[in-house]
């Protein structure tokens, strides 16, 4: 059950100029766009230029400010420059949209009453007569009204006065969304006025599907079936249900939206649609091998994202990295593993090779007879003992004393057969590299060294300190 403390609501207010240009289709498109930023969106009754959005439980997405920015971006995407207010109550959220000079305002949790105290009475939905009476009495702010005793307010202004007094104290029990069944992920949107055609739903439904998929993704699940509940505002107000079941669980919004559209075309609603709710009554394991019989097989990015959320949570952005040349001086810097994070999943899934699952070389090709060695670099260069010979050449190297301490052999970072003891080395070099003069600066001499048994490593001597380090080895 939702508690008022956990509730956060966003009010999206459109400019006055939008009223004339905003027909039902545009309103549905706006609601669909907003659903990408919040799971539930509904119009404010009696105010065609305002919508409510459920902003609760968004801490993991950056909190109230992030949601407000996302709502603003979504509205901009739909072609509207809106204002957004986020608060714990409807009245404070609506008042926050009227604050000049800022596109969004977030009222901190629990601070709604304090926030309203200094705001004008104009933010309260009271009759003009009551507002005028209060003005004549010198009561022009919510704080002044809230400071009155409730008995006096009821005696002088009646039931309407008490309602306004309560709102001025941020005592607003309104919650425009129906409580969600915690077991069934759902997203809904209301349409005001109701629409006769299913065309506006084509804009709305993808946003709802996206919201449902995101709720399921947090549990690493993807939809196995969707239920579309249409609120019909006909002679008798009622609900109609359309069930959609893809061939197997998928989080591919294109597929699910396509199925919903086809269901609506085959079974059109029996009256004007006043609202749509998408539920996922069945879900499945987030497997990404969603294949398409008629296109090149490619993984489902939504399912891949859902399945690998725990990996990104533990390994961060580096859980999906790509190698890229950067062109710096030092071997450790001229290329890097760039972390792409979960944002790179979509691009990755589109990189499916065209000849998928078809072997590239089926013939009896012999292949090449050599292997090009790769450098393996230690996470940090490790100091090693080197006996220098003529011209500061490394004549003998000892890695052994440092193996457990510096090379991380105990933790398994580097475990293998480094040449034991002090060994005479064959070496080639130096390659002198200096750079980063704008920062600490460095000057190094790199040497390739070979142990008698063929082990090939890369050492460098730091010119400033004269100390030797192991950069890595070739394998």
């Amino acid at each position, binding site marked *: 059950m939702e508690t008022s403390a956990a509730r956060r609501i966003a009010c999206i207010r459109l400019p006055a100029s939008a009223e004339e240009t905003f027909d039902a289709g545009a309103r549905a498109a706006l609601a669909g766009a907003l659903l990408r930023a919040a799971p539930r969106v509904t119009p404010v009754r009696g105010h065609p230029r305002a919508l409510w959005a459920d902003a609760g439980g968004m801490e993991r997405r950056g909190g109230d400010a992030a949601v407000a920015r996302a709502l603003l971006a979504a509205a901009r995407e739909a072609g509207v420059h809106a204002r957004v207010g986020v608060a714990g109550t409807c009245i404070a959220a609506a008042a926050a949209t009227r604050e000049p000079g800022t596109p969004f305002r977030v009222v901190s949790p629990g601070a709604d009453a304090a926030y309203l105290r200094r705001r004008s009475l104009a933010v309260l939905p009271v009759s003009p007569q009551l507002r005028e009476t209060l003005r004549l009495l010198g009561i022009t702010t919510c704080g002044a009204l809230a400071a009155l005793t409730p008995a006096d307010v009821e005696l002088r202004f009646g039931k309407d006065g008490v309602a306004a007094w309560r709102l001025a104290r941020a005592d607003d029990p309104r919650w425009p969304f129906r409580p969600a069944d915690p077991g069934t992920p759902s997203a809904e949107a209301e349409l005001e006025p109701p629409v006769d055609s299913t065309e506006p739903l084509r804009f709305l439904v993808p946003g709802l599907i996206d919201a449902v998929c995101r709720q399921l993704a947090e549990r690493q699940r993807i939809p196995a079936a969707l239920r579309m509940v249409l609120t019909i505002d006909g002679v008798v107000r009622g609900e109609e249900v359309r069930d959609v079941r893809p061939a197997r669980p998928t989080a591919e919004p294109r597929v699910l939206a396509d199925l919903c559209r086809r269901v609506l075309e085959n079974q059109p609603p029996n009256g004007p649609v006043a609202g749509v709710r998408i539920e996922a009554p069945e879900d499945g394991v987030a497997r990404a*091998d969603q294949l398409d019989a008629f296109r090149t097989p490619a993984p489902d990015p939504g399912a891949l994202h859902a399945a690998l959320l725990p990996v990104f949570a533990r390994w961060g952005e580096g859980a999906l990295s790509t190698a890229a040349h950067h062109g710096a001086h030092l071997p450790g810097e001229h290329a890097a593993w760039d972390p792409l994070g979960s944002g790179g999943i979509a691009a990755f899934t589109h990189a499916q090779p065209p000849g998928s699952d078809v072997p590239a070389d089926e013939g009896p090709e012999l292949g090449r007879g050599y292997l090009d060695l790769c450098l393996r670099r230690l996470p940090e260069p490790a100091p090693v003992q080197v006996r220098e010979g003529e011209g500061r050449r490394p004549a003998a190297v000892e890695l052994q004393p440092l193996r457990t301490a510096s090379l991380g052999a105990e933790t398994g970072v580097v475990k293998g057969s480094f040449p034991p003891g002090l060994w005479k080395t064959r070496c080639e070099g130096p390659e002198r*590299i200096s750079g980063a003069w704008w920062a600490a600066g460095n000057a*190094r001499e790199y040497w390739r060294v070979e142990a008698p048994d063929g082990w090939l490593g890369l050492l460098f001597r730091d010119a400033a300190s004269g100390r030797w380090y192991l950069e890595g080895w070739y394998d």
Partner: protein
Amino acid sequence: MSTAAAHDLNKLKQELEKRFGSAVRPLHATEEQRPGFRTGVRALDQLLPAGVPRGALSLWTGEETSGRTAAVRALVEAATKQTLAALVDATRTLDPAAWCGPHGHSAPGLWVARPPTPAQVMEGAWVAEALLRTGAFGLVVLDGPAPDPTEAHRLRALARETDTALLVSTPDASPGWKADVRLEFRRGGQGAGLSTGGRYRRGAGVRLARGTGARTGERMVELVHRPHSLLNTAPWTADRRAAARR
């Protein structure tokens, strides 16, 4: 395809899409139609004529400078031309420069996962398991310490279930470590491999210790290192070498 057949196929497609959307899963090809991944390296392809097998766990072991990492790179390069591949660099020791292709970045179909700190090296097996579970990859490579036998058993079962080629590349693994295919790399040859200019050339042996349907015995391969004139090979960077003082 005749016009009538094309018409029938189109009709079937429409019927299927009408009923199931476009998420129709094609039938799995049979084992024979889904061969393993060949490396393009003669010695390895001779030992594994059908390639690194799908639906199986392969183990490659070998000391440093035995060419094991180079062989993994050759395998990944070849596999990414056919499928999506994942590489778990659990030890964080793979040098990115070696994995950059001619365009300055790694293959777009290669997913590389690296832990944020070296201390998380033992989580590599867990990440490989998560990647296998997705079923999105044709090849998953775990480069790092060998997982314990229980984890290995789970990984092997997942590889079989998802028909993925799973490769564990590790410096060492106990002889009792179960794998469907086991290749052992070792340094070979006598005398100096390193020569003027930092060039390196030395023989190495690859032995098939275990494998069904594969050829036994050892093959020789030549390990080669051809350094560029600069360690920094990016062509757009100016040469600012200066004699190190002191």
